């Protein structure tokens, strides 16, 4: 008898993926499926994939799936998780989706501490619509809507979402990983597994940002794209674990200890406004 030592994860269907050659969406899909299999979650996992290159994720994950509108996956995940807390709910979002149109939804999903897992795929462009500038596009990076390179005077600096969410007080697990090399892929899977484990235990919100390649829209071959990620994205988007639910709170130095603040009196907090119908319609 031969023993199967490597095969397709049960949590993936047999449908061939539509992704471009060298795109890392496929790798990330597989990592999710492997983690679901290993943790025995296929029967209670629910994925939410909004528009973006992964809009057809419901064809690939062999589990119950939602397709969601652009940016709103964290709200959809909130709805599903709140009705059935025993479900293991994850979103799969691009950087245009999560860091631009969906900023309100991701920030408040994280801040409410929804016990869901967010897989955030940062490829520094809007992939599906053909390579436009994303909030994560690097300074100087040429895209179809930044033909002279991203001008930070006009477009601001690329948004670092993990760092931004790490500033919230609500406990969370937040990490950034990459999938541009086999060693990084193995690491990424371990981190992703940890993110799902927090959800299984009901501990906290978890998000893993995956640095990802887009050879087609970057205009590079797949090996060149991996090198480009390494030389350009890694310095701006450091890999690591930025927040754990067990980790210490970020405590700033008290103002009084700073030289400029001498003589400044602490202002007592104003009494909370009372009255039920305070709104005037503004």
């Amino acid at each position, binding site marked *: 008898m031969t023993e199967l030592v490597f095969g397709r994860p049960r949590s993936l269907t047999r449908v061939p993926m539509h992704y471009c050659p060298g795109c890392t969406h496929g790798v990330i899909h597989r990592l999710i499926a492997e983690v679901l299999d290993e943790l025995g979650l*296929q*029967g*209670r*996992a*629910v994925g*939410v994939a909004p528009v973006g290159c992964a*809009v*057809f994720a*419901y064809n690939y994950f*062999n*589990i*119950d*799936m*939602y*397709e*969601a*509108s652009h940016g*709103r996956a964290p*709200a*959809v*995940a*909130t*709805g*599903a*998780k*709140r*009705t*059935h807390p*025993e*479900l293991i709910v994850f979103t799969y979002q691009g950087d245009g989706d999560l860091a631009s149109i969906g900023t*309100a*939804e991701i*920030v*408040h999903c994280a801040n*409410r501490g929804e016990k869901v897992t967010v897989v955030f795929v940062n490829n520094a462009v809007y992939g599906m619509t053909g390579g436009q500038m994303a909030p994560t596009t690097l300074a100087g990076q040429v895209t179809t809507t930044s033909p002279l390179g991203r001008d930070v005077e006009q477009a601001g600096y690329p948004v670092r979402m993990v760092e931004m969410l790490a500033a919230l007080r609500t406990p969370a697990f937040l990490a950034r990983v990459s999938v541009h090399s086999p060693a990084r892929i193995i690491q990424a899977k371990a981190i992703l597994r940890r993110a799902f484990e927090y959800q299984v235990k009901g501990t906290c919100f978890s998000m893993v940002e995956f640095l990802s390649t887009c050879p087609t829209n970057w205009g590079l071959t797949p090996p060149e794209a991996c090198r480009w990620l390494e030389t350009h994205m890694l310095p701006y988007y450091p890999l690591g674990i930025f927040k754990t639910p067990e980790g210490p709170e970020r405590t700033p130095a008290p103002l009084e200890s700073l030289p400029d603040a001498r003589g400044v009196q602490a202002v007592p907090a104003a009494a909370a406004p009372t009255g*039920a*119908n305070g*709104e*005037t*319609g*503004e």
Partner: protein
Amino acid sequence: MARKLMKGNEAIGEAAIRAGCRFYFGYPITPQTEVAEYLARRLPEVGGTFVQAESEVAVPNMLYGAAGTGERVMTSTSSPGMSLMMEGLSYLAGAELPCVIVNVMRAGPGLGGILPSQGDYFQATKGGGHGDYRCPVLAPWSVQEVTDLVQDAFDLADFYRNPVLVLADGLIGQMMEPVEFQEDRRPCKALPDKRAWAARGWKGDRPRAIINSLFLDPEDLERHNRDLKAKYDAMVRDEVRFAEYGTDQDYEVLIVAYGTVARVCKTAQEDLAEAGVRVGLLRPITLFPFPYEAVRRAADKARAVLVVELSTGQMVEDVQMAVMGRRPVHFHGRQGGMLPSPEAVAEQVRAILRDHAAGPSARRRASRRGGAS
């Protein structure tokens, strides 16, 4: 159960709980915030969940996630919030997810005001969100009726796998009236089993649940559109609701009005009757599907039709479509939170009759009277 004095907004909340809704997602906005406040208090008592969302953009997406697991879910809002929900509403309709959305309308456009209005009729009945969809729209005229309609809305939503809108004006939300909850209430529709499609984790015992509105293949999408159309046709065939007052007798003018405005018109009708002027009143309860046939039949018995609305004239277009030019259709509207008085409505009825007696050119003048038209 004994009758209980309740504020409309609280009655909406209680009705949802009676209907088995255990999940509410919402964002505060006057004049319906008491629905959220009531449910924030009540839902935990019955093992339910209240979530204050970050915006009305997020709300219908939370409904999408929650309804997708097969639970009864709802939200409530007022006009500006309803505008923000249009994206999500279109997705809910496209993915065929049942849910109830209550819009306690306030005056617009823009930030407008916080007083009652019926300015969202077009938005509710003619689309609002993108794409080719319809939602049943239920329009209550009293606190008791909103209580009943909210419960029916959940049954209709489940039966048709479609969002159902309850379109109330600010008066319904704010006024207090006696309410009775029927203890042995039966669903108004046969309720389908949601387990066949709900996303509750796939264990291989059914096809995978895919909650989705994307159909990139045009043939597939057209088939989907036609399936939806068949559903909307069934609503048109089976769900039309309206009430008539004094239409079993002869009358000269037919008034058509919905929501609380119909109560003003009813008073006008009674006042006119005392003065010997006979008026019929037809009150649409479903705005989609609109009672076209009932309006046409009732209009045929009258010499002229008067539509009264808290808008510059929206439902009047459906009445014109129903009447198809067979009778003159006049309009009386107030805006901005102003309400028509029974006297003003009665006066316009008299003017219509006077001008009608005087001939066609005077009739044209009469149709332009009233607060606006």
